[in-house]
């Protein structure tokens, strides 16, 4: 891919990592509830995937990580405010980090029940097809979530209708403590594409070029009116399921740590001469500063009124 794009993916991935690490520390300090499922290890692929789309193509995501939001430039302080129960957030105290939303940036939210997004994405594809030709709906989900029945119903109907949807499975090998091999009867989740007559491809989550290309191909197919695709990213979950998960069920934690795609990208950026070590260090410092500024901005926001509990349910007078 072009150098500037690669640099941008690196910058956003770094910012995501710094942001989430700071989030975890805030959680330990009790400033926000510890409800983040860290995306460490998956942010490079998430951001590369988003880079393959138009800036406002709708994104439905799952619970792991904030790379999607950072990729689209969602306000960091807003995400923190969501979690801290303060004003200035995106969901008015309703959904914390789980339901970050920013429709102007194409961030269309998350289903708290895993697999709930598959079916929503189908309808969004139906609307895109009719109202916004050329728009592509992307839905990210985990290996674990791919065993929900909604996966089947959604992919089948999306394929029948040739909807402009791209399904991206981030297979990090684990669903909380359950390894994919014990929950899933097939090695590559992408193989399930056969059952819906659509392309299914596997890409390595360490390789942003491969991810970008795969999503581009799928998005072009979607825009042509040829229907959905299934992309499986072989990913690595560097941290616990949730921020403070001891992970004692996990024999592969050390091995995983050695496979950090962000480290690989950092090394590539430096060895290819795209940035010097010093430039990377100052980028890191800039990310840290940006995150600190977001923390300060969040903390300056007033707490939400408890009466927000009664808002945002029904549209009044409709």
């Amino acid at each position: 891919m072009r150098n500037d794009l690669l640099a941008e993916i690196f910058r956003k991935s770094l910012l995501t990592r710094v942001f989430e690490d700071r989030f975890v520390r805030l959680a330990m300090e009790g400033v926000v509830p510890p409800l983040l499922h860290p995306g460490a290890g998956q942010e490079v692929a998430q951001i590369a995937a988003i880079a393959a789309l138009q800036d406002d193509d709708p994104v439905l995501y799952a619970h792991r990580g904030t790379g999607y939001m950072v990729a689209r430039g969602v306000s960091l302080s807003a995400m923190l405010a969501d979690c801290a129960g303060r004003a200035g957030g995106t969901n008015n105290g309703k959904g914390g980090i789980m339901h970050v939303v920013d429709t102007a940036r194409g961030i269309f939210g998350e289903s708290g029940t895993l697999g709930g997004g598959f079916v929503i994405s189908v309808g969004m594809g139906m609307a895109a097809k009719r109202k916004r030709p050329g728009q592509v709906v992307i839905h990210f989900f985990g290996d674990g979530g791919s065993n929900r029945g909604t996966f089947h119903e959604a992919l089948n109907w999306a394929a029948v209708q040739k909807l402009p949807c791209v399904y991206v499975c981030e297979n990090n090998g684990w669903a909380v403590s359950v390894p994919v091999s014990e929950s899933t009867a097939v090695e590559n989740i992408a193989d399930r594409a056969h059952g819906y007559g659509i392309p299914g491809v596997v890409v390595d989550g360490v390789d942003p070029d491969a991810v970008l290309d795969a999503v581009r191909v799928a998005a072009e197919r979607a825009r042509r009116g040829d229907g959905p695709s299934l992309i499986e990213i072989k990913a690595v979950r560097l941290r616990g399921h949730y921020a403070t998960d001891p992970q004692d069920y996990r024999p592969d934690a050390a091995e995983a740590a050695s496979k950090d795609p962000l480290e690989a990208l950092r090394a590539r950026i430096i060895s290819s001469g795209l940035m010097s070590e010093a430039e990377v260090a100052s980028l890191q410092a800039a990310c840290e500063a940006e995150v600190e500024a977001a923390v300060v901005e969040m903390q300056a926001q007033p707490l939400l009124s408890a009466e927000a509990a009664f808002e945002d349910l029904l549209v009044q007078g409709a």
Partner: protein
Amino acid sequence: MREITYSKALNEALDEALAEDEDVIVYGCDVGRWGGIFNITTGLQAKYGADRVFDSPISENVLVGAGVGAAVGGLRPVVELQFADFLLTAGDEIFFKAGMWRFMHGGAFTVPLVVRLPSGATGAGPEHSTCPEAYVMHSPGLLCCVPSTPADAKGLLKLAIRSDNPVMFFEHRRLYQTRGPIDDAAAVAPFGKAAVRREGRHATIVAWQVMLNRALKAAETLAAEGLDVEVIDPRTLAPFDFETILASVKKTGACLVVEEGYRRLGVGAEIGARLFEEALPYLDRPFRRLAIPDVPIGSAPALVNRILPSEDEIVAAVREMTR
């Protein structure tokens, strides 16, 4: 005034909604080419095209879930589930996605979705027979219509499609062939306005759909005995017009709810509890409910009839209450 059937009324509502607003789409199993297993969508695909009126796979989760997504994306989907019972088959999508997608994202979206739910006991067995309105009325974020007349069927369905909120629309299958007057010029009362179908002063009956018809017949029998029963049709269960019931019961002092759902924690439970909360000084008579006695609905007609509240039971209950 014209007289049309309840099913024709629904068909007209869909037809007009499709004509008025090109964001309206209609889909579900068999609704396209065939016009629906109960013929409510007859002719609509031919008129509006398969892009707007279409068949679906047998996939209730995605039927409803895609409806939420399509609504979020700017369409106004009207989804048919073939049997109201299937609302529980798509439980996550009805209660969490339709009911809460807007809420959990802090009001970022509107969800103008209508799910049509043909309900009622016709001997098709425990999973194809219920009137599961109570599940909806218990759940935040969902509106709920229960039209009893052709005029309401048409008017409420049109309102439901225009609403920016998700609406669960219960059509009673045993009403499809019933006829009634419809005044094309009249404005439809908004959601949350009950209709007093008969005035009276000795007791109040709350009932809708098939049970409303039974209640009205029972009221005639009772009138011949000198008992004047007020009969209230709530028309929508969410929002719920409790005020009309309260005013009636304050006048009559006695309330009977007749419903085709299960009794325990049914709609009647809520009405009884609210009356007890808000009208105790006016309550002359113990509250009464007639409902399905907390067993599933079998398929043999004798068994079904045994548990559906009957006209005779309504008459007997009012006699007993007012004794």
